């Protein structure tokens, strides 16, 4: 029974895609939209039903499994379309389908006038299905199928308005950059298969734990470290970490609900999911974990600096997403797996909220995205305003909003960690928190308060969004307010999410050693420090942008602002050092093929031709020439005989 329900969770979105595709001519747009929404809501409810059964802590990781059909078999490989719902995948499935449903409903309103309305919902359902395959797949190839599937949907949705070549380019960039990461993932898969002889995820992770217990794999084993690093390369691509984060800001070319669903709340957290899923590998590879922590901290820091000076409302949120994902990796790197997953959940709440709020603003202003041309929207968009305001508090991490608890858990574990590395990345995280609060409230001020700076075009249809859009905003706002309750600080002894996930991370923590419990006053002191930092940043921005961007002008001249304005020139560096040489190689190959290889081929042909031409001189058809040659030959023979 549970198995069948589990199968339905993933089959319903795919079935919905098929139905919508083949009936797109006859289905009325409204009905198609409702089918699409239902195809996300039903899996959510089913997950609640099935997931309840796996809450009980057991010695083994509690899970429901199901096999839909066999897939790759033969030659010692045995991979099926097998599903596995355990606490980790259950948490993700609930976020994906829950937030996904809200965003589908929102899209009914947002995409209402778009001629590609039906196509949009086909892609969105395909995305949900692929994401569920990624999360629920019990084997690496199925995880990879979902991984690439969500990448495909991301590609299709970024380039949704493909008439504009820039959008199509952004989609292509996302796909190709992701493929760099996927190459890492693929190589990790090859190494895992060679090492463990199977691609079943549970078998691999259990095999590693058992191998460690028997002494086959020591702490810091080179092979395991390499696998972990390759997996992380894959995660860097999908979750937009340095140096592969360049695609995410460009991905904002897609419709805003897409940015909220795919490029903030769900798909980009796939890398976190993967690292969490393979946490035993990272626990056994301290070097890889250190790399994860450093890359995460640097991404958090660098993206936050770029977000400080962006003008486009979605770009600010995009860089903020990179930055928050960096936090999650920071958490994973320092061994705070539960805290990282917690941050995934709260971030999904508040970042979806902020993106949908931004979408509501953009919708109201007839597709204006430049925050410099907004301002004073508070009275015009009351519901959008207060929900966005809530989202800002959550993102900045101000007590008691959701972001405060999750971010603080990560920073706490980092700052109080052992050695010098963990506190160092923790400090970097703290500085990032300051900047986060600053750019968040800068954005809020620029958009909602101060003088109106709207274009006539934007002003024409200024209106609050319909209920299909504002109701999801309200729900997400409530989640952003209360989401922190899922996992309160350790001294509160109330940690639903942490308890639920405990069996998943137990093997990794057994290897790496459970984080030490700190005294209550240390934790509280730390919270107060981070709260002070955050409030300071928020207050600073609040005052500085009180009257719109005017206070910011004239722009400070000099190196740093210039550098930030241009996003650290990362795109340009790629163009010069990666794309350029590769493109050059392609042209060189074309040249080589045409002139060198074919030159030799045609040269040989011409040589044969030439030989023919020389020999042909003898065959000139004149009898006296033949007679002459005949006599010459005869004379030569006679002479030589004599």
């Amino acid at each position, binding site marked *: 029974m549970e198995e069948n329900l589990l199968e339905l969770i993933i089959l319903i979105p795919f079935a919905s895609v098929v139905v919508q595709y083949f009936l797109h001519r006859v289905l009325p747009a409204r009905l198609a939209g409702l089918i699409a929404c239902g195809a996300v809501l039903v899996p959510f409810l089913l997950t609640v039903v099935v997931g309840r059964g796996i809450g009980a802590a057991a010695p083994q990781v509690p899970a429901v499994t199901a096999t839909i*059909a*066999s*897939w*790759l*078999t*033969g*030659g*010692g*490989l045995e991979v099926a379309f097998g599903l596995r719902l355990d606490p980790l995948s259950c948490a993700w499935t609930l976020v994906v389908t829950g937030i996904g449903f809200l965003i589908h409903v929102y899209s009914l309103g947002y995409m209402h006038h778009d001629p590609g309305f039906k196509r949009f919902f086909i892609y969105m359902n395909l995305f949900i299905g692929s994401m569920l395959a990624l999360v629920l797949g019990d084997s690496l*190839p199925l995880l*990879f*199928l979902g*991984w*690439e*599937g969500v990448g*495909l949907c991301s*590609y299709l949705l970024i*380039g949704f308005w*493909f*008439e*504009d*070549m820039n959008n*199509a*380019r952004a*989609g*292509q960039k996302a*796909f*190709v950059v992701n*493929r*760099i990461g*996927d*190459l890492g993932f*693929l*190589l990790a*898969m*090859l*190494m895992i*298969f*060679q090492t463990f002889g199977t691609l079943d995820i549970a078998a691999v992770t259990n095999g590693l734990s058992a191998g460690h217990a028997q002494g086959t794999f020591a702490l810091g084993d080179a092979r395991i470290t390499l696998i972990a690093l390759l997996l992380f390369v894959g995660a860097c691509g999908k979750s937009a970490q340095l140096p592969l984060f360049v695609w995410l800001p460009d991905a904002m070319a897609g419709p805003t609900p897409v940015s909220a669903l795919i490029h903030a709340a769900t798909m980009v957290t796939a890398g976190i999911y993967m690292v969490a899923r393979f946490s035993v590998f990272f626990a056994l590879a301290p070097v890889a974990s250190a790399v994860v922590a450093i890359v995460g901290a640097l991404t958090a820091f660098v993206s936050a600096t770029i977000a400080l000076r962006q003008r486009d409302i979605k770009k600010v949120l995009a860089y903020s997403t990179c930055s928050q994902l960096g936090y999650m990796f920071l958490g994973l790197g320092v061994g705070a797996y539960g805290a990282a997953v917690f941050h995934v959940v709260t971030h999904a709440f508040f970042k979806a909220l902020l993106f949908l709020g931004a979408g509501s603003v953009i919708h109201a202003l007839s597709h204006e995205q430049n925050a410099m041309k907004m301002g004073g929207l508070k009275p015009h968009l009351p519901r959008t305003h207060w929900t966005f305001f809530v989202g800002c508090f959550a993102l900045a991490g101000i007590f008691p909003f959701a972001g405060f608890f999750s971010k603080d858990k990560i920073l706490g574990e980092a700052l109080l960690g052992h050695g010098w590395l963990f506190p160092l990345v923790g400090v970097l995280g703290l500085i990032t928190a300051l900047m986060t609060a600053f750019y968040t409230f800068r954005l809020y001020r620029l958009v909602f308060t101060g003088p109106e700076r709207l274009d006539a075009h934007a002003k024409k249809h200024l209106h609050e969004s319909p209920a299909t859009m504002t109701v999801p905003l309200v729900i997400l706002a409530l989640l952003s307010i209360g989401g922190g309750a899922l996992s309160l600080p350790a001294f509160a002894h109330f940690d639903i999410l942490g308890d639920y996930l405990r069996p998943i991370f137990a093997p990794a923590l057994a290897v790496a050693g459970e984080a030490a419990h700190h005294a209550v006053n240390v934790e509280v002191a730390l919270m107060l420090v981070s709260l002070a930092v955050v409030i300071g940043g928020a207050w600073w921005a609040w005052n500085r942008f009180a009257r719109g961007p005017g206070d910011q002008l004239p722009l400070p001249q000099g190196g740093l602002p210039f550098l930030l304005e241009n996003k650290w020139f990362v795109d340009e560096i790629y163009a010069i050092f990666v794309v350029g040489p*590769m*493109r050059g*190689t*392609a*042209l*060189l*190959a*074309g040249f080589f*093929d045409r002139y060198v*290889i*074919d030159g030799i*081929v045609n040269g040989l*042909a011409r040589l044969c031709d030439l030989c023919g031409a020389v020999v042909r001189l003898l065959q000139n058809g004149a009898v006296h020439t033949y007679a002459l040659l005949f006599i010459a030959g005869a004379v030569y023979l006679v002479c030589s005989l004599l």
Partner: protein
Amino acid sequence: MNSFGILSLITFLPLLGALVVAFLPRENPKVLRAAALLFGLANLGLSLLIVNAAGTMVFVERLHWIPAFGVCYGMAVDGISMPLVILSCLVVPIIIATTFHVGRGLKEYLVLLLIMETGMVGVFCATDIILFYVFFELTLVPLYFLIGMFGGVNRIYAAFKFFLFTAFGSLPMLVAILFLLYQHHQATGVWSASIEDLRALRLDAATQNWVFAGFALAFAIKVPLWPLHTWLPDAHVQAPTGGSIVLAAIMLKLGTYGFLRIAMPLAPQAAHSFATPVLVLAVISVIYGAYLAWAQDDLKKLVACSSVSHMGFVMLGLFALEPLAARGAMLQMLNHGVSTGALFLLVGCVYERRHKRGLDDFGGLVKVSPALGIALVITSLSSIGLPGLNGFVGELFILLGAFKTQPVFAILCASGVLLGAIYMLQMVRRVCYGTPNCEEAAHLSDMSVAEKFAFAPLVILMFWIGLAPGFLLERIGPAVDSILAALGNT
């Protein structure tokens, strides 16, 4: 297991069809096309009867042909040849259904195509090496005329180049074959040209190397392996759509099939000792072919160069000498046939409408002709190995297997996966997205019913192999395992 001659029927029915079409009046293209299509479809139906061939040779036929030298007319199929036979029988009716653009000379076009089918099916069924050689060469002639008579502006150069390259490879192969027959007679006192008997020969290492080299040249040109590939882009660009499809879907497989069926089993030790040099060329083909494809501005040439890259992948699978990789290689032969065949079909469709093939001659195709655009996008995704479609399964098997025995080559080839995404997606972007680049590109008709019917089986295969490859793997697996087992024993 003897049979009622089903394989001969599948092989020669198209020849009969060619004869019938040849005697029909050329004034009525509909009748010509219908007759050819009838034979093509009938043959496709017949070919489905052999679908359960797996580990052992079945539907065996054996008749004496040149008894003095032990040459027989021997036919049989196993899990390796079966899918290739069926693919050949599928591709021909698909081409016939899309010959509406062929004006004058339709009759010759159809006759040549049906003769091709006889050659292609025969080559995969032959169990006698002389018969194999005859069919191998038979495929050459109709394709030469297809390119030379129906090709583009440079067709004579391309046809000639194609013919010379192939003939250049065939001669050493013939020498190797005759040498093997002679060796068999020396060793056993009887003449035999059966591949089975020749496999039983125990040649010393040096002799094996010469034999292998003789075959390898012929097959490497067909694959084509770098640096013997330059005939392919020219042949593809100049060939008519049907010629390109046959070339991509079937003809290139003669090379890889030849390696698997002939060269490797007949010279097992040499297959091991030549593995490294062959793999080096395979890796170069994968990467170089991908870069080459990236540099192209012509749709057909881009697809042709991508073939070089993909076939390099198949060679990796074969010469990794590993059960998973060999399965993957077989699957990838079929996948390449399906995907690249479909790509050439679609490129033919757009060329027919626009009479240009430049990547920048279109723009916004998914808006202008949605069905055509979507078909092109799906096929491109299949070609770059998106999981869920066919290409991924083959690639994954090849890489999983090859990584065990040849990790370095596997890693290098895996980077081809990345390059594939770059050149295919930029093609898709330039052709399918954006806005039409000019007035003509804005008014292209969408796929016709015939074109949709021709394309449908290919797209079904893409999903079927991608999601449920078990059916094929069950049949391919035992067959490749038995060949690998024989290779391992020496």
